[in-house]
């Protein structure tokens, strides 16, 4: 069974530019989550999708971040415009119905804003 995949693995952009991160969850996993880890800090929750609906977006830092999950399959996280403090590793995770808490993580996208 394929795991959670994320693209790109690494992105370097300048302040003010736009970046879109993609996550493909494990097949059959209705739940999809975004987390991020900024330098020296613990992993923090951003938001949770159930299929195509946003269930919880309490962790989204501000309106420069836009997450979508069209058709309930893959998800994208767009940062526009990027700021220096957005640098970090963005993780995507997914879980299956009935085992919601067992979240399986992707390898992450390392975002560097210069």
């Amino acid at each position: 069974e394929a795991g959670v995949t994320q693209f790109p693995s690494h992105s370097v952009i300048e302040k003010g530019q736009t970046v879109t991160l993609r996550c493909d969850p494990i097949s059959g996993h209705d739940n999809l989550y975004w987390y991020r880890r900024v330098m020296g800090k613990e992993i923090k929750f951003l938001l949770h999708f159930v299929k195509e609906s946003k269930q919880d977006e309490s962790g989204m830092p501000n309106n420069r971040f836009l997450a979508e999950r069209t058709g309930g399959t893959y998800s994208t996280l767009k940062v526009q415009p990027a700021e220096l403090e957005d640098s970090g590793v963005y993780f995507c995770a997914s879980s299956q119905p009935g085992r919601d808490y067992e979240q399986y993580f992707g390898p992450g996208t390392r975002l560097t804003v210069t």
Partner: protein
Amino acid sequence: EDQVTQSPEALRLQEGESSSLNCSYTVSGLRGLFWYRQDPGKGPEFLFTLYSAGEEKEKERLKATLTKKESFLHITAPKPEDSATYLCAVSVKAAGNKLTFGGGTRVLVKP
């Protein structure tokens, strides 16, 4: 506010030298506590879920236990391949499915 604190931050062990990692938590209504392993450049890898005080889970050289205030991850006779960062996370009843993570413990096992 829900808090998860892991100690120590780093641990250096000789191969075969058993030890324990601590995860203490302060939450309002624990639904579950999770242990993950993370290797450099990779995402967290799920290890265990613990739901209630007194529960224990084992996997190879790892054993996780849970009390009402903390969890321990015991590493018995570790091998160099057990070197990784071990992360603890909690799910809280009033907070949906989101996980709150601790800062992790970096474990280095020397041969």
